[in-house]
C-alpha cells in the first residue's frame, strides 16, 4: 500500500525540478554574452519507483513512479572541438607572431623604394660616374664623399634598427614567459578549487569554463597537451577532474594545484613563444649577417682598389684579427689522429696569414689517461703556429684508448686567458677523441651547461673536433654557435677558417664609416683619400676601377658562389619577401581554420535565446501543471480528511 501523501510528494518533486530547470534556463539567458560560457542543462531523471522488489513487498499493482529529480546540471561542451581549437590556436599564435615580425623587418629594409639601401648605393654609383666625367671638379668630389657617407650611414642605420628590434624581442620573450607562468599558476589555482568541489559530487561548471578559457589562452603561446586526472572522493561520473598540462612531448607545466614555473621553455615547438625565439635567433640575425657581408665586402674591395692606386682607404675597416685557442687532448689515444690534426692546424694558420688576418694562438693541453684530478697545461699565447704544433707532439704514457679526459677543466682554464674582444674574434677549438669528465659522474667539478654559460658570458665560440659518435660534446658546439667537426676529416680547417672569417665581419655594418681624413677638408689636400686623386688630373682609371667594384663578382657570403652587389642584395630581399609572404599566407589560413572550429564550438556551446525561450515555456507549463496537480491532491486529501466518515453529520 502506498502512502497517503504519495501523490503530493510526486507533484512536489515535479514542481521543484521544473523550478530548478527554470533557474538553469534563467542562468543561461543571463550569461548569453559571457565569453567562454557553455550553456548548461538540467538532467532530469526519474526517482526510484515504489515498491522495490523484495520478499515483503506490498501487493499493489505495478511499480509506481515516484516523480522526478534534477540529476545533475551539466554544461554542453564538446571536448574534441576544444582539442581542435587549441591546435589551430597554437599554429595561429606562431604564424601570426612570425608574420608581424617579418612585416617589421620589411618596413625597416624598405625595399623597393626611393629611400632604401639599393637606391643609396645607386646614387653613390651615379656620383662616381659624375666624378669620372669631371675628375677635378670640387663639386663632384664633394658629392662623392657625401654619397659615400650616406652609404655607410644607411648600412649603420639598418643594422642598428635590426639590433634594437632584436633586443625588443628579448624583452618580449621574457614577458611571454612570465605570461605563460602566470597562466599556469592561475590554472593550478582553478584546479585546486575544482578539487575542493568535485569530491562532494558537484560539477563546478563555472570553474570548468574558467579553466578552459585559461587553457585556450595558453595554447596560443605554447604547444600543450591536456589530460585529466580523477579528483577522487565522491566525484560524479561526469566530473572532469584535475587538468594536467604538459608541453608537447615534454615536461609537465601544471599538475594538480602546482604549477612548475621554472621550465626551460626553449625546447617548445610552435606557438607565439617559439615564433619570437625564431625571429630573435634566426630571422633578424640572418639579415644582420647579410648586411655585414655586403658592407664588409664592398668596403674591403673599395679599399683594395684605393691601395692598388697608392691612395689611403676609402672606408674605415678595422684590421682583421683572430684569437684562436686550441684545447687539445694530449694523451696516447690521440696518437693516430695527431698527424691529421697538426696538418689541419698548419693549413688553417696558412690560410689566415694568406688573408691578412693577424692571428694569435693559444694552447691548452689536457689528459691524464684515465686518471682524474690532473690539471690542464696552459701555454702562453703566441703568433707562431709552429710553437703550438711543436708542443702538440709530446704524448703521455701508453694506456687504453678512449677513456674520458678532464676536458671541461681545460676549457675553463682556456677562459682564463682573459682574451679581449678588441684584440680579435675569440674562437676556441676543442680537439679530443674521447668523452670528457662531467660533474654528474663525479670526476669533474663542472657540468656541461656550466661551461656553456661561462663561454657565453665571455662571448666565445667553441668548436668541437671529435669522433662523429661523440654525442656528449655536441651541445658544447651547438649552444655556443660553434661547429661540430669530424676529427678524421682532412678539411676541418676549411670550416674553421670560414667560421673565423664570418666572425671577423660580424657587426661591421653597424660601424661602417668613411675613412679619415675627413672629406670636408680641402679636397685638393694631398693627404685626402678622394678616389680621383691621381697623377694626371684627368686620369679616371682609379675611378673606373672603383665603379667596377659595383659590377664585380665576389663571394659575398663565403658560400663559394660569386655574384655582384645588386644580385646578392636582391636575392637577400627576395628571400625575405618569400618567407614573409609564406608566413602571411599561413597566418591567414590558420586564422580561418581557427575561426571555423570556433564557430562549430559555438554552435554546440553558446546560448541560443530562441532555444531558451522555448525551454522557458516548456518548463513554465510543466511547473503550472505540477502546481495544478498539487491542488488536485489537496482536494483529494480534503475529501479523505474532511469528507469521509461523516455519515449523518
Amino acid at each position, binding site marked *: 500500500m502506498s502512502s497517503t501523501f504519495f501523490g503530493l510528494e510526486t507533484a512536489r518533486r515535479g514542481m521543484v525540478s521544473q523550478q530548478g530547470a527554470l533557474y538553469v534556463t534563467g542562468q543561461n539567458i543571463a550569461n548569453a554574452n559571457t565569453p567562454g560560457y557553455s550553456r548548461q542543462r538540467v538532467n532530469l531523471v526519474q526517482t526510484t519507483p515504489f515498491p522495490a522488489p523484495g520478499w515483503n513487498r506490498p501487493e499493489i499493482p505495478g511499480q509506481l513512479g515516484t516523480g522526478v529529480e534534477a540529476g545533475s546540471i551539466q554544461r554542453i561542451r564538446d571536448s574534441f572541438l576544444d582539442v581542435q581549437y587549441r591546435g589551430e590556436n597554437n599554429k595561429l599564435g606562431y604564424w601570426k607572431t612570425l608574420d608581424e615580425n617579418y612585416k617589421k623587418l620589411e*618596413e625597416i629594409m624598405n625595399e623597393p623604394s626611393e629611400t632604401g639601401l639599393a637606391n643609396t648605393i645607386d646614387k653613390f654609383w651615379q656620383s662616381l660616374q659624375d666624378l669620372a666625367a669631371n675628375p677635378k671638379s670640387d663639386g663632384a668630389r664633394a658629392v662623392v664623399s657625401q654619397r659615400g657617407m650616406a652609404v655607410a650611414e644607411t648600412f649603420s642605420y639598418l643594422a642598428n634598427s635590426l639590433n634594437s628590434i632584436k633586443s625588443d624581442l628579448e624583452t618580449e620573450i621574457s614577458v611571454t614567459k612570465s605570461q605563460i607562468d602566470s597562466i599556469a599558476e592561475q590554472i593550478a589555482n582553478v584546479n585546486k578549487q575544482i578539487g575542493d568541489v568535485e569530491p562532494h559530487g558537484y560539477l563546478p561548471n563555472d570553474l570548468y569554463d574558467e579553466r578552459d578559457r585559461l587553457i585556450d589562452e595558453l595554447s596560443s603561446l605554447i604547444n600543450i597537451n591536456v589530460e585529466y586526472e580523477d579528483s577522487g572522493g565522491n566525484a560524479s561520473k561526469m566530473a572532469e577532474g584535475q587538468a594536467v598540462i604538459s608541453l608537447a612531448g615534454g615536461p609537465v607545466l601544471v599538475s594538480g594545484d602546482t604549477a612548475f614555473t621554472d621550465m626551460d621553455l626553449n625546447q617548445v615547438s610552435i606557438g607565439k613563444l617559439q615564433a619570437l625565439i625564431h625571429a630573435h635567433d634566426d630571422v633578424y640575425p640572418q639579415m644582420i649577417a647579410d648586411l655585414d657581408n655586403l658592407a664588409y665586402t664592398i668596403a674591403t674591395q673599395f679599399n683594395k682598389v684605393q691601395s692598388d692606386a697608392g691612395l689611403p682607404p676609402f672606408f674605415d675597416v678595422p684590421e682583421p684579427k683572430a684569437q684562436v685557442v686550441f684545447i687539445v687532448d694530449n694523451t696516447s689515444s690521440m696518437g693516430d689522429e695527431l698527424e691529421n690534426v697538426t696538418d689541419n692546424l698548419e693549413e688553417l694558420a696558412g690560410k689566415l696569414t694568406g688573408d691578412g688576418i693577424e692571428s694569435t694562438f693559444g694552447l691548452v693541453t689536457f689528459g691524464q689517461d684515465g686518471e682524474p684530478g690532473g690539471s690542464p697545461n696552459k701555454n702562453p699565447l703566441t703568433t707562431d703556429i709552429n710553437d703550438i704544433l711543436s708542443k702538440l707532439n709530446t704524448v703521455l704514457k701508453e694506456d687504453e684508448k678512449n677513456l674520458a679526459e678532464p676536458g671541461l677543466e681545460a676549457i675553463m682554464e682556456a677562459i682564463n686567458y682573459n682574451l679581449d674582444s678588441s684584440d680579435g674574434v675569440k674562437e676556441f677549438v676543442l680537439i679530443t677523441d674521447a668523452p670528457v669528465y662531467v660533474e654528474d659522474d663525479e670526476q669533474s667539478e663542472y657540468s656541461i651547461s656550466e661551461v656553456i654559460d661561462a663561454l657565453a658570458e665571455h662571448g666565445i665560440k667553441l668548436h668541437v673536433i671529435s669522433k662523429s659518435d661523440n654525442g656528449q660534446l655536441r651541445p658544447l658546439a651547438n649552444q655556443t654557435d660553434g661547429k661540430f667537426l669530424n676529427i678524421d676529416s682532412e678539411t676541418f680547417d676549411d670550416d674553421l677558417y670560414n667560421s673565423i672569417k664570418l666572425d671577423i665581419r660580424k657587426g661591421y655594418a653597424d660601424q661602417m664609416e668613411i675613412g679619415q681624413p675627413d672629406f670636408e677638408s680641402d679636397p685638393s689636400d694631398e693627404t685626402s683619400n678622394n678616389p680621383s686623386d691621381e697623377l694626371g688630373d*684627368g686620369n679616371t682609371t682609379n675611378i673606373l676601377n672603383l665603379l667596377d667594384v659595383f659590377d664585380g663578382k665576389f663571394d659575398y657570403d663565403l658560400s663559394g658562389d660569386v655574384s655582384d652587389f*645588386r644580385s646578392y*642584395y636582391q636575392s637577400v*630581399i627576395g628571400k625575405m*619577401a618569400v618567407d614573409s609572404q609564406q608566413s602571411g599566407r599561413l597566418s591567414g589560413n590558420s586564422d580561418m581554420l581557427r575561426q571555423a572550429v570556433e*564557430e562549430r564550438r559555438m554552435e554546440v556551446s553558446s546560448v541560443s535565446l*530562441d532555444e531558451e525561450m522555448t525551454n522557458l515555456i516548456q518548463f513554465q507549463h510543466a511547473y503550472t501543471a505540477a502546481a495544478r496537480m498539487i491542488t488536485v491532491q489537496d482536494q483529494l486529501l480534503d475529501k479523505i480528511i474532511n469528507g469521509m466518515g461523516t455519515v449523518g453529520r
Partner: protein
Amino acid sequence: MLATSNLNSISKSYDRFGTLQEQLTSGKKIDRPSDDPVAATKGMFYRSNVEEVGQYKRNLSELYVWMENSETGLDQTNSALQRVRELVIHGKNGTNSPSDQKAVAAEIGQLKEAVAALANTKVAGKYIFNGTYIDQPPIGMTEAPKLTLDFHSDSYEIPVSDGVKIKANIDPTNIFNEGLFGTLENIENKLNGEDSEGKSFDDLLNELDQHLEAISNERAELGARYNRLEMVDSRLSHQEIVANKILSSNEDIDFEKIIVDLKTQESVHRAALSMGARIIQPTLMDFLR
C-alpha cells in the same frame, strides 16, 4: 554565434577595402615585398636599370660638350691656317715692298698666337686639348711671341654603358705640334727677311698643306666618333623609355581596374551590412506574448 561570424565577414570586407585604398593612393601594386616577392626583386632590378640609363645619358651630354668644342676649335684653326695660306700666296709675290711684307708678317704673327690660344681652349674649366691633364694649358704664352709647348696625348674617356667608354678628346699632338708652329714661325721670319731654315715659300706652303690635311683627318675621325655618339644617344633614349615602361608595368596599378574593384567592393560591403542587420535582430522573444 551568428553575430560573431557576421562581424568577422564584415571586418574581412574592410580589410579588402583597405588593400584597395592603399593601392589607389600609392599607385603601386605592392606595398611591401611580401605582397609579391618576384615583382619586388624585379622592381629593384628595374629601378637600378632606370637610374643607370639616366646616368649614362648625363655622361653623354659631357661627351657632346667635349666633341662639339673640339670640332669648333679645329674649324677655327683650319680657318686661321687658310688665311695664313692666302697671306703667304699674297706675300710671296715678289712685287710687294718690304713694309708690305712686314705687315703680312705681323698679321701671320697674330694668327700664330690665335692658333696657340685655340690650342689652349678651356671649356667649363677644362683644357680640352691636353689629354687628361685638363688643368694645365698646353701652350705657355707668358713669353709671347715665344711659345712653350707641353702637350699630352692620352685619351680622355667617358663611360657610356657597362664597360664601354668613348674617347672625348682629339690627339692634340697631331695638330698643334712643333711642326705647325715651326712652319708659322718660318713663314713669319721669311716675310720679315729673317732666317727661315733655308726653306722657300713653296716648301712652306707644302708644309702648310700637310698641316691642313692633318686637321682634316682629325676632323674626320672626330666626325666618325660623333656619329657613334649620336647612335649611342638614340639607343640610350630608347632604352630609357623601355626601362621606364617595364618598371611601370611591373609595379604600377591599372587605375581603372582599381576603381572598378573599389566600387564593386563597396556594394558588396553594403549588402553584407544590410543582410547582417536583418539576420541578427529578430529573435523568438519578439513573437512570444
